[in-house]
């Protein structure tokens, strides 16, 4: 129970003509069952590489990954992956896309039961009306809903999300964060999500893992996010801790935009963050509060 996913000394090295390029070095992380952890860092820092190694889509150079007491080798449907682009097969309907995975995992179940599972998850993500549509007929947000439904419908041991909302506009993104967090709460899944959106990480995560900049990226700092659950966006935004944590994260990211090696104390760097990046209170009124209430 205490350590569900263990990432130990994970290292990724690509051979290049100029010699080996170390993308990630000695990455260590332990995740408890049912925990929601966000990996945050600058683009290109290697956070997606870590996630795809956990997903088994990228080979591990050194180190190991243990999920539920078993070392992971290669990809498998025990980890539900939500990619940045929804990765739906365009010649299949939304339902068929979800069923493709369900058929694979629940091959002993009767066809009606498999259909029920797929239909259940599609309706939970709000697509009961659009199940028989093909991806081309769906909006970007709806496609990602299918992606989420597909990942959850596999009944995976854990969820891996690779910037799943990165390509969406901010309103759709908030809607989908809500969809995701509700499903996560219902199914009690362990989740590891890569993002570069500080607010998204603060709203969703129990812990935020900040990665240092690559090459040779590693864990820079870990932030506990103790907002009470179930979370409501308005309550989170108004929480007294919110802006302290946000400032902390942004300062960390700011430090690492300029420095190669992490400072001993994240947030206590030698130079202060530029004023544009410090969270100003006037950010709040700009948020359309009416749209933030859970659907």
């Amino acid at each position, binding site marked *: 129970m205490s350590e569900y996913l263990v990432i130990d000394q994970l290292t990724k090295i690509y051979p290049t003509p100029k010699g080996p390029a170390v993308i990630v070095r000695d990455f260590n992380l332990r995740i408890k069952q049912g925990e929601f952890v966000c990996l945050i860092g600058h683009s290109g820092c290697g956070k997606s590489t870590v996630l795809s190694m956990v997903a088994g889509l990228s080979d591990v150079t050194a180190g190991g990954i243990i999920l539920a007491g078993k070392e992971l080798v290669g*990809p*498998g449907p025990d980890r539900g992956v939500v990619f940045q682009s929804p990765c739906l*097969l365009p010649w299949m309907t939304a339902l068929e896309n979800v069923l*493709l995975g369900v058929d694979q995992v629940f091959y002993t179940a009767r066809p009606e039961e498999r259909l029920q599972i797929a239909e259940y998850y599609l309706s939970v993500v709000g697509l009961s009306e659009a199940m028989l549509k093909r991806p081309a007929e769906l909006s970007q947000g709806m496609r990602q809903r299918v992606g989420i439904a597909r990942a959850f419908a596999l009944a995976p041991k854990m969820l891996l999300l690779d910037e799943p909302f990165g390509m969406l506009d901010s309103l759709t993104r908030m809607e989908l964060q809500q969809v995701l967090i509700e499903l996560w709460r219902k199914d009690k899944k362990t989740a590891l999500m890569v993002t570069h959106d500080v607010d998204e990480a603060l709203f969703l995560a129990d812990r935020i893992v900040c990665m240092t900049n690559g090459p040779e990226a590693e864990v820079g700092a870990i932030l506990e996010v103790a907002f009470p659950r179930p979370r409501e966006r308005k309550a989170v935004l108004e929480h007294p801790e919110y802006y302290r944590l946000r400032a902390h994260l942004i300062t960390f990211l700011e430090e690492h935009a300029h420095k190669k090696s992490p400072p001993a104390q994240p947030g206590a760097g030698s130079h202060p963050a530029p004023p544009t990046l410090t969270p100003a209170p006037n950010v709040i009124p700009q948020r359309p509060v009416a749209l933030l209430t859970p659907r």
Partner: protein
Amino acid sequence: MKKFKLDWLVLPLIGIGVVLLLWQISAATWAKELPSPLKTWQVSRPYLAEPFAKRGEMDQGILRFSWYSLILVAKGYALALLIGTPIGFLLGLSKTFAKIFDPIIQILRPVSPLAWLPLGLVLFVGAGRQASELGALFTIAVCSMWPTVLNTSVGVRAIPQDYLNVAKVLKLSRRKTLFKVLIPATLPYMFTGFRLSLGIAWLVIVAAEMLTGRPGVGGFLWQEYNALIYEHIILCIITIGVIGFILDRLMSVVERRFKTA
């Protein structure tokens, strides 16, 4: 360009008119043996008026001849697709396979049907009366399969990594990956290959029939050349062109259906 009513009909008719005029002038001036358009029409009329008539082995309505040719093309073309598509998949899927066979494919591809046919006849010489048909089929298949092979392999290589990741993450079996992911993803490319292959298959038929003397448009053309009835050569050329055009249109309709999928 300014558009006007019926321009889609009038403009092509102008083109045809120009060609007919050049033809008429040529027939009247420097090419004395070339029959004029009017003469061609008069001599060809019985073949067009009764397109399915059968007056003798080598004296049949033009559509009846075309039908024989189409049947032969259909067989050879089917053979080309059956062989070419799997080869294309293997080339696209395996880099080693591609390295082994790509050079030989590039060498065989530009060889003319006129060169393949004698080899085909030699190969099936043991088949007796069937030799000419089998030789023709061999030639059609060998010449027309290359676009299918190459387009399929390009299509397989062009499958987005996203789709392959889905297959990997779900741990789809090889069979399922092939039928649920690889083939549907390659289909648009495959159909482009199929369309080009059909064009070539139709091109080859004439050469094959000319050399084997089989009844069909190509065989008829060659026979009428030997019989000095030049009007019929032109009739055959026009028929072959029109049928090729129709086949291409039909295939592109099918192709477009798969493109949108």
